[in-house]
């Protein structure tokens, strides 16, 4: 029987470590690799031009790689539930493969496609390769709950089996006799569209700082490892002015789109570490980037409301402010705080910002200054940030706004001070906000404090050429700390800092005193009873008295055990 296979690319846009593709090729006669451009599902209108460009570059790269194997990529427009029945019939498909998608609506979509495939008699092959582990196993190992703190997650990971090795890259040898029927008009029907064809204005668009594609990803991986080996230092690099700029060894967007396999990255890191550190076991902190990603995927996989506050069981209900004007100022980099505005400008222009920069702007929007819901910030990041996918983006925003994951909210990033400490000279500001170039380092982070002469010399009057600061940070942060306290004080399990916990400590000591009094009273009672027994028993039979004493002893032991249980119960609650 002829086996005609479709491999469906969604994420996992690569030919290395693609086990679902590799397994589906075995025994196949024909293979068609497709990508479905779902105009409704694939991020809908909330995907900016940088993300589309990155995706299209990934698809071009895949197409080029497949061409070298005498195959092509088929880009099909439409919704999967409409597209597949048509393709199953037209191409006489009996096998479908794709990489497992752990996100809730990914699972829903795939369940619908599975059903269609079953009805059409199509065999479905799914493999896990977007995450290091099988997320359901992690959840199972944690008592059927996703771990809600990163520390707990790390503890569970330590008990998991080793990460599976990456699958073999697809080559001519792997393909063997499997062919791809390519028609004359392939480019017209199934070619990768351009940005213009999708309706974007490309005039004035600068070259991509982050070029998409598997080839680029693998090259970056090599450079990344080279740099680590050269430094021979696997510690987290100290933050300096250079860290803020896009790095040629940065890998996060490639991990998100699947151009780079996380398992390949994992193993290469491990090998390099062992080589440099002479066979020491690598610590978990080496894989920080990968494990955070894994953590958020795990927490999100069974929670369709993960990206909302309302109806989300792990999200604290915080009375955020609705303020579209303030939100627009933040999103467009018009807050009047150069540090925040420069970061948002870099984000919009290039599609990537350093993670500490993300913390700064997220804190500013939510619990630090503007008190606007993290859902709004998440939507802006979804539009602009190349490596933001549903789980990681929503999870990080919840974390940064202290809406979940038991965070200590006291730490608030100052929109002036934080930038100043990171890049004292202000070159980052000057690069992304050229209007402020003329300001000296002393005033570039708070130009509204600069005297008039300085502003005139810099040819930038605050309030005219550059906006005044939209909030008074000291006042705003003071108010917001208070708001956070109000909310968390109502959560009885929370024991954070800055809470004025006198009531809690008082309560605990009371419990202890009560227990001690109880113990003393009960011991006195026991001795009293014992002495009674002894007197009474002694009057009758000397032999009997010993058995009575034994009985009393047993009673004492039982009461002691009960007391210990009570005590431990109280301390556990503590």
């Amino acid at each position: 029987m002829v086996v005609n296979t479709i491999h469906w690319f969604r994420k996992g846009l690569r030919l290395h470590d693609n086990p679902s593709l590799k397994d589906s090729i075995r025994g196949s006669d024909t293979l068609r690799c497709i990508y479905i451009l779902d105009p409704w599902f694939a991020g809908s209108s909330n995907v900016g031009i940088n993300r589309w460009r990155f995706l299209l570059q990934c698809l071009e790269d895949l197409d080029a790689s497949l061409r070298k194997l005498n195959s092509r990529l088929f880009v099909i427009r439409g919704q999967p539930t409409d597209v597949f029945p048509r393709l199953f019939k037209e191409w006489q498909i009996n096998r479908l493969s794709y990489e497992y998608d752990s996100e809730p609506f990914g699972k829903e979509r795939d369940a619908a496609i599975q059903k269609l495939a079953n009805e059409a008699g199509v065999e479905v092959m799914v493999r896990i390769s977007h995450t290091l582990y099988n997320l359901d196993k992690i959840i199972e190992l944690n008592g059927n709950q996703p771990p809600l703190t990163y520390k707990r997650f790390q503890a569970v990971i330590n008990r998991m089996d080793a990460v599976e090795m990456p699958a073999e890259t697809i080559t001519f040898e792997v393909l063997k006799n499997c062919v791809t029927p390519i028609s004359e008009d392939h480019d017209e029907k199934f070619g990768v569209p351009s940005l213009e064809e999708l309706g974007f204005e490309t005039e004035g668009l600068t070259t991509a700082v982050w070029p998409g594609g598997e080839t680029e990803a693998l090259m970056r991986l090599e450079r990344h490892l080279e740099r680590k080996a050269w430094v021979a230092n696997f510690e987290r690099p100290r933050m300096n002015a250079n860290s803020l700029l896009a790095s040629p060894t940065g890998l996060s967007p490639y991990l998100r789109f699947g151009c780079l396999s996380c398992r390949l990255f994992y193993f290469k890191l491990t090998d390099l570490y062992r080589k440099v550190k002479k066979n020491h076991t690598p610590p978990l902190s080496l894989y920080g980037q990968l494990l955070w990603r894994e953590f958020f995927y795990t927490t999100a996989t069974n929670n369709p409301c993960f990206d909302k506050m309302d109806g989300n069981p792990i999200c604290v209900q915080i009375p955020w402010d609705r303020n579209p004007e303030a939100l627009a100022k933040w999103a467009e980099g018009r807050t009047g705080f150069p540090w925040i505005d420069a970061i948002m400008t870099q984000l919009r222009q290039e599609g990537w910002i350093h993670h500490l920069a993300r913390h700064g702007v997220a804190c500013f929007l939510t619990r630090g200054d503007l008190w606007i819901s993290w859902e709004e910030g998440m939507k802006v990041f979804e539009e602009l940030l190349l490596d933001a996918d549903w789980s990681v983006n929503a999870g990080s925003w919840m974390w940064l706004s202290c809406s979940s994951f038991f965070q200590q909210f006291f730490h608030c990033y100052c929109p002036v001070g934080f930038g100043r400490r990171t890049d004292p000279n202000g070159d980052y500001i000057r690069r992304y906000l050229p209007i402020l170039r003329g300001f000296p380092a002393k005033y570039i982070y708070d130009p509204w404090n600069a005297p008039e002469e300085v502003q005139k010399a810099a040819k930038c009057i605050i309030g005219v050429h550059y906006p005044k600061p939209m909030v008074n940070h000291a006042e705003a942060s003071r108010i917001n700390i208070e708001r956070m306290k109000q909310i968390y004080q109502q959560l009885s399990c929370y024991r954070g800092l800055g809470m004025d916990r006198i009531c809690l400590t008082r309560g605990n000591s009371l419990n202890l005193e009560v227990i001690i009094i109880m113990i003393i009273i009960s011991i006195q009672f026991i001795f009293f009873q014992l002495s009674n027994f002894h007197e009474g028993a002694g009057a009758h039979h000397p032999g009997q008295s010993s058995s009575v004493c034994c009985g009393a002893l047993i009673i004492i032991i039982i009461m002691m055990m009960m007391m210990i249980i009570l005590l431990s119960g109280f301390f556990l609650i503590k």
Partner: protein
Amino acid sequence: MKRMKGGEEGSDDSSCESPAEVCKKVRKQLSDDSEPEVAESLDCNWARLPQELLLHIFQYLPLLDRAYASQVCRGWNQAFHMPELWRCFEFELNQPASSYLKATHPDLIKQIIKRHSNHLQYVSFKVDSSTESAEAACDILSQLVNCSLKTLGLISTARPSFMEVPKSHFISALTVVFVNSKSLSSLKIDDTPVDDPSLKVLVANNSDTLKLLKMSSCPHVSPAGILCVADQCHGLRELALNYHLLSDELLLALSSEKHVHLEHLRIDVVSENPGQHFHTIKKSSWDAMMRHSPKFNLVMYFFLYEDEFGPFFNEEIPVTHLYFGRSVSKEVLGRVGLHCPRLVELVVCANGLRPLDEELIRIAKHCTQLSAIGLGECEVSCSAFVEFVKMCGRRLSQLSIMEEVLIPDHKYSLDEIHWEVSKHLGRVWFPDMMPTW
């Protein structure tokens, strides 16, 4: 507890007859009427549950469910309106344009004011950042003429919208409550335009009962106004205010013989403009406070620029909980180590890029009560940090250090440090992490 057919499973309600007896009574009545249908008699049982029982059950229900229950029959509707169910109420006033959360229904509010305003005792208002919500709160306040409130809280859940209400409107609404309640024991009016005359009215009517007063960031109050409160309200146990209201006279008034022991004093030190000057409080005033109330908690929140700390921490001060919301210099933290022997909790949001090694060790040495510390954007070398934890030992119940704070050195790397620290703390400890992606 005996399970009965057709009756509610009553919990231990000591104030009324046991449910079994009640049901027996009801059944007797029915058997006298000799109803043939069992189903009908079941319905009658439900409707004739005694009010005390209904009250007890209703107290477990959230308001919405109670409201549904009250629609069932007249008896249940009567129970719904019993005064005991209307002692506490939280008015949530939100506008859809400025909040994601739902507001208390306006009809419910009308009903409460009409039928239950004299039952209310513990009331709070939660408003969002729109002025309309704050004004609605003031309107409700002005109608609470028959109440004798014990607790009143005006809470802005986002921006302080009470400050945008016209001052006279707010003051007159608040005065209604002050004058009519006469037994206010707890009052939370942070971020409101309350002023000295209204405080005088408060004192004139509630001086015997007032125990808790929170009025941080009330810009229209002067030190004389709050002094008046301290002089007259001798039962005051908890006070929260801004530093500009704090004076030597106030501390002395709070430590006068007639005054009860103060338990909790919270002070917010906020800078309006850079380079602001702050007055100093004499050490003798703090000593008087300590003599009078040796166990009181002094909580101070600082939101100042680095160069405004001049007047602070030059002499011994009995602060117990210290929070630095903005960047604070190494030098000031050094002074904290020297002059704050009662320190229990310390939070530093940011410091700068010079290591705080000596300062931390000094704090560990002198602040023997320290049990909680949190460090944000600071730098501490790993060896100094381990030394700090060793000196504090197990009394550190809360150690919240951001991962970026710890600088690995020749003795310890980041991976080794958490074992060392865990050893000295007697429990597993990790630094706080932020996601990297």
